[in-house]
């Protein structure tokens, strides 16, 4: 929400605080300001200027030489590129210094309305009528919308001026004079079907309307606060909305059917073409304003095109209504349209405000549409309004809540400056009446008054004291400790941690062959492509690999995050997983390195052959088993998922890993007798796992094999295609003696014979 400083000043008598200081005060006491900017910088020194003559410039494309009478600056020669620059018009001259354009010395410039910040019109230079006054530049304070969502009254300048008056101790000026309103006897009737959805509908009818541009001061104010000037009637409704926070709408009276305006639920599939030229199909949950023929506005959101004001309009119905906040909000979400009106109504506007806006219009209209005449009286239907509630404020309790004792007179002064009614109740208590514009949703209980007093004395005026509460040192839960140790370990092995979003796209889940029905679907994704909760860390890790492969030839990354799995008839389950990836442009032993990383977390794990997942290389994938349970897998990413290079993936279920924990080691006496070692190379199927062969050697060798270690693997000539040679070092020994040479030979032969029986071969 943008606030014009000059507008606020016009509503606070004698306001002498500069805009910069005011911004700070508002931030400290009312709402967060985001910045301050000047609206219409070029207006400094700008004057009305009459174009006396225009002549073409030789060789100058689209520019002409204009001689202008620039008032106090005298006669000036200006080079101008505007298509409407012609002798006789009055425009605006800005003294910007001189420069040569198209060979002609141009002194200053002629400006468009957009350049001056008066409107968005930049089609040509501005053309002034004799009555136009050039407004001075303004300063605009930008306030964070989310800091005023609880304050319907602050969605207009008068509400902010009330705050400013209270903060600075000045007097608020009310731009509204209710006594100008006519009494009953309107030409239009109002029929409200449900007074809980449309709390009030008020309207006036005018004739002899002249639709024309608004005066410059009004256009400037609207433009400064981000509203687009259109014509005097539409501008008036926006002007009053920006001033009083009351959205208004004007209908062309001649385009309405019948003399009754209905506020009713839309009929099923009823359509309306709105002012933005969009057609909306409505449902009975959407409230419409209608005439005898059909909808003429979507209540609280936008007006209809068919009854809109045009240049030919001569009579208007000016409406000022109040709608249920959540109804407007829901309709606005349904039709995906948020407007300046819906934004205000969804904050719960004060229904007392509708007639105030009409009274303001009644005084402004003759200024912007000379000759306009009010026809008939006021149409005004509304729900029964209950008198504003009063709150009992206990001053001792207030002091305890605030942490500061305040003089009762000070509390009364603050509340009254904000227009609360204050009466002394029983001793030490005040009886506080809430003003109607704060009573719709905002202030309802004593705690809300604590906030009012607190912010006005300034939270920074309260001495901070630590709370007196029992304290005990806290320890990290074991799960967090475990995850931290896993992180440290991976980082120490050279893996960089990444953190991806928990949302993935359905297309991506399909691409990796993940079962869609196992995913939790996000009802309102924050962005396209984030519609599912991930059941695997893979999509994120895969995209990390693809992106980083553009810049690096080799890298290691890992992520620790939750997998979320849908459960039929139960709440979804969440498990922390660790996924690591090792990428290399050139083929290298990526799988083995990942196995070592996994072993660091699960010492003694076993590797078992496994069926490939759709995203895995069809043969290069294994399951990891530890302490009789499958804890994860290591695999190579399917080559089709990468443009170049290879990536190996480790996936570990950290819940299982934490539950299982490494086995407690028990000391075994170191063997006193020397051991002997020999190497053994078995020729195996290329897809066989070294771990399998190692396991078999251990089984065959029995107790004499103290250790079996993998040494190396070899493929290629002279071995045939599809075969590999795997070398192990067997360390043999006995606890009670040194093994003799024949015993060792016998052990070697036994292993060779055993493996041969299982289909392994040995080179002669």
């Amino acid at each position: 929400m943008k606030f014009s400083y000059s507008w606020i000043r016009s509503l606070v008598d004698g306001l002498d605080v500069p805009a910069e200081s005011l911004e700070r005060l508002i931030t400290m006491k009312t709402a967060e300001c985001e910045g301050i900017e000047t609206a219409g910088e070029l207006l400094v020194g700008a004057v009305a200027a009459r174009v006396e003559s225009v002549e073409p410039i030789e060789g100058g494309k689209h520019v002409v030489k204009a001689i202008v009478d620039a008032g106090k600056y005298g006669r000036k020669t200006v080079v101008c590129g505007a298509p409407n620059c012609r002798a006789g018009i009055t425009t605006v001259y800005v003294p910007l210094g001189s420069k040569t354009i198209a060979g002609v010395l141009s002194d200053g410039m002629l400006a468009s309305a957009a350049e001056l910040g008066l409107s968005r019109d930049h089609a040509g230079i501005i053309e002034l009528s004799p009555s136009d006054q050039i407004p001075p530049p303004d300063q605009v304070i930008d306030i964070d919308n989310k800091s005023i969502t609880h304050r319907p009254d602050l969605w207009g300048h008068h509400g902010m001026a009330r705050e400013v008056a209270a903060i600075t101790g000045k007097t608020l000026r009310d731009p509204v004079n209710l006594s100008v309103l006519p009494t009953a006897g309107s030409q239009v009737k109002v029929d409200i079907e449900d007074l809980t959805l449309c709390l009030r509908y008020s309207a006036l009818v005018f004739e002899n309307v002249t639709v024309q541009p608004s005066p410059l001061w009004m256009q400037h104010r609207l433009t400064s606060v981000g509203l687009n000037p259109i014509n005097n009637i539409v501008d008036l409704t926006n002007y009053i909305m920006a001033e009083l926070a009351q959205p208004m709408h004007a209908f062309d009276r001649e385009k309405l059917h019948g003399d009754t305006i209905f506020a009713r639920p839309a009929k099923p599939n009823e359509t309306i073409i709105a002012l933005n030229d969009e057609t909306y199909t409505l449902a009975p949950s959407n409230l419409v304003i209608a005439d005898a023929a059909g909808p003429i506005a979507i209540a609280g959101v936008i007006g209809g095109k068919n009854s809109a004001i045009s240049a030919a309009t001569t009579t208007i119905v000016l409406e000022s209504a109040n709608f249920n906040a959540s109804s407007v909000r829901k309709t606005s979400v349904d039709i995906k349209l948020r407007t300046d009106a819906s934004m205000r109504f969804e904050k719960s506007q004060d229904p007392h405000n509708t007639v105030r806006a009409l009274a303001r219009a009644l005084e402004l209209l003759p200024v912007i549409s000379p000759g306009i005449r009010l026809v008939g009286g006021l149409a005004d239907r509304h729900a029964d309004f209950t008198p504003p509630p009063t709150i009992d404020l206990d001053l001792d309790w207030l002091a305890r809540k605030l942490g500061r004792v305040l003089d009762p007179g000070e509390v009364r002064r603050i509340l009254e400056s904000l227009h609360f009614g204050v009466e002394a109740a029983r001793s030490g208590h005040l009886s506080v009446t809430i003003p109607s514009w704060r009573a719709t949703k905002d202030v309802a209980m004593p705690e809300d008054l604590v906030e009012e007093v607190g912010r006005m004395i300034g939270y920074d005026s309260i001495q901070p004291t630590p709370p007196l509460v029992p304290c005990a040192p806290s320890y990290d839960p074991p799960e967090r400790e475990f995850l931290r140790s896993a992180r440290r370990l991976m980082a120490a092995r050279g893996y960089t941690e990444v953190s991806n979003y928990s949302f993935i796209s359905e297309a991506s889940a399909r691409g990796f062959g993940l079962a869609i029905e196992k995913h939790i679907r996000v009802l309102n994704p924050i962005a396209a492509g984030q519609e599912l909760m991930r059941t695997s860390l893979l999509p994120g890790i895969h995209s990390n690999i693809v992106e980083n492969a553009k810049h690096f030839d080799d890298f290691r990354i890992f992520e620790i995050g939750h997998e979320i799995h849908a459960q039929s008839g139960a709440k979804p389950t969440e498990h922390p997983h660790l996924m690591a990836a090792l990428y290399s442009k050139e083929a290298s032993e990526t799988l083995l390195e990942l196995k070592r990383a996994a072993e660091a977390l699960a010492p003694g794990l076993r590797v078992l052959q496994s069926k490939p997942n759709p995203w895995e290389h069809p043969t290069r994938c294994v399951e990891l088993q530890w302490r009789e349970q499958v804890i994860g897998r290591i695999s190579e990413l399917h080559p089709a998922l990468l443009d170049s290079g290879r990536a190996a993936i480790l996936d570990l279920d950290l819940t299982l890993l934490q539950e299982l924990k490494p086995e407690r080691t028990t000391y075994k006496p170191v063997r006193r007798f020397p051991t002997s070692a020999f190497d053994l190379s078995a020729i195996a199927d290329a897809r066989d796992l070294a771990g399998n062969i190692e396991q078999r050697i251990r089984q065959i060798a029995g107790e004499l094999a103290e250790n079996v270690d993998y040494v190396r693997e070899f493929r290629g000539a002279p071995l045939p295609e599809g075969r590999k040679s795997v070398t192990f070092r067997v360390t043999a020994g006995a606890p009670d003696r040194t093994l003799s040479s024949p015993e060792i030979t016998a052990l070697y032969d036994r292993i060779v014979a055993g493996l041969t029986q299982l289909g392994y071969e040995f080179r002669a």
Partner: protein
Amino acid sequence: MELLPCGLVNPHVLRKSGIDPTEWNGFAFGLGLTRLVMMRYAIDDIRWLQSGDLRFLRQF
């Protein structure tokens, strides 16, 4: 810049949670850790933190 948005818990919330608001106060706050990190390291765009881009991550 908003770093630690905080405030007293609305008594209705306490009542809904079975806590007597005349006896207890609730204090709610949220630490914007990513914003602190951005300030500490002069990071210009919050999206870097979830980018997985090693050109960024390897600086830490």
